[in-house]
């Protein structure tokens, strides 16, 4: 995997974790 692809994937994973994390957190919080 190229260095650019690795950097891009790490950043995309961080973004996805923020997106899902905030929803899952308050989904569990509300139950």
């Amino acid at each position, binding site marked *: 995997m190229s260095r650019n692809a690795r950097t891009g994937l790490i950043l995309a994973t961080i*973004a996805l*974790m923020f997106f899902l994390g905030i929803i899952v957190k308050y989904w569990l919080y509300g139950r």
Partner: protein
Amino acid sequence: MSAVLDTHGKAHDHGHHDHHGGYGGVMRWITTTNHKDIGTLYLWFSFIMFLTGGAMAMVIRAELFEPGLQIVNPEFFNQMTTMHGLIMVFGAIMPAFVGFANWLIPMQIGAPDMAFARMNNWSFWILPFAASLLVMSFFMPGGAPGVGWTMYAPLTVQQGMGMDFTIFAIHLLGMSSIMGSINIITTILNMRAPGMTLMKMPMFCWTWLITAYLLVASMPVLAGAVTMTLTDRHFGTSFFNAAGGGDPVLYQHIFWFFGHPEVYIIALPAFGVISQVIPAFSRKPLFGYASMVYATSAIAILSFMVWAHHMYTTGMPVTGQLFFMYATTLIAIPTGVKVFNWVATMWKGSLTFETPMLFAIGFLFLFTMGGFSGLVLALVPVDIQLQDTYYVVAHFHYVMVAGALFSAFAGIYFWLPKWTGRMYDETLGKWHFWLSMIFFNMIFFVQHFLGLAGMPRRIPDYPLQFETWNKISSIGAFGFGLTQLLFLYIVIKTIRSGEKAPEKPWEGADSLEWTHLPTPAPYHTFETPPVLK
């Protein structure tokens, strides 16, 4: 800037590589993966959105020209304020600076293009669809959402289908921003020319690197918030709907966790442009480069700790209010460092006042005023009085218009010769600046008085006591709107019939696009990286 060892790119680029790829006409623009083409697309798109959001501002100010309801009904007025805010923030200002980033970052770090050129194309071409969704929401049953650009619950749960269009538009705009940010971070971290260390990068690249991190961390939070709003509306959840046990204030916390960094997502690239323009017209290097980098980073980190200063009146504990008040006032320190450095750069410089420099100095004055009124609003006892008044409207327009927009104008006049190979009309440019400066203050300075006198924001009607300042503000708005048509004329005139630009029109400019590349910049640049030391 570092000394030149190899100017290979400069000699190389005028040759057989100066073509536009496989397609011509419209297909060139749809299929392009060239960072300069995509930068141009972003800039034109943002200008169209600026005119669209500006037209909505004209409707707002026309309605507020005198007390009573004259032109639009209150529901449509709310839709105008909502869409004006969303379009200006997500459709105009943010894409404008992404346009600058696309054009300049590869040239300033000695890279041939952005790291993910195809994704770059996709990042842009999502935007027209998102903008269409926003505009189409006006034609849905119930019209566009009239909830304000902050999209607070529980109002959002009660809106018509236009709200769903807006939510999907936000998703698309967020995806575009996140992809753009990933591209920018990867390009800057991995594709700098040999010798271009991070601490040698032009300040514009630094501010965009930090902004891109802010975007990656905050945009998904907004996407999460609007997704939860969507599931509350249609899928039976109760994240924010009090009727089902949800908490509307939770939405505000999540929104402003995105919303305050968003202010700096807009402001930091503007700081970057100013940090390029002021040294060029002072004919001196930027004063305190390292401190600028650290101040920018400090602002970015602090921006995640101050979100609840937008929520003092929601009933938070005093300790919470104190924390957010102190954290917010702390931001004045790194911001003060930056303003000090810009002034110190000008100090004893060989100053000239061409249009880019005029807009940069206008930015400096007016953004500092917006910063000061921000400090006023950071103080809990004052903010509780001024919450949701026109004082807040005045404050953030000093930051957004005089800050971001003036900086974008400074940047466009500064780099227009590099982009087009032609010079703009200096006399008309100066007219554009002075008319913008006068009309801007006519609109927004008087709104401080309206706010202090207690006029609430987001209302189509008001008591007679506010009439005079509102009239002045509206006249200023019409003047400001017309002045921007002058800007459009200047840009078109430059492209069509501007005088040929010299190789280096600004003698004090010292970043790679000025020192290593011809004017106009060729279609492909730095296919062989320059070697710097």
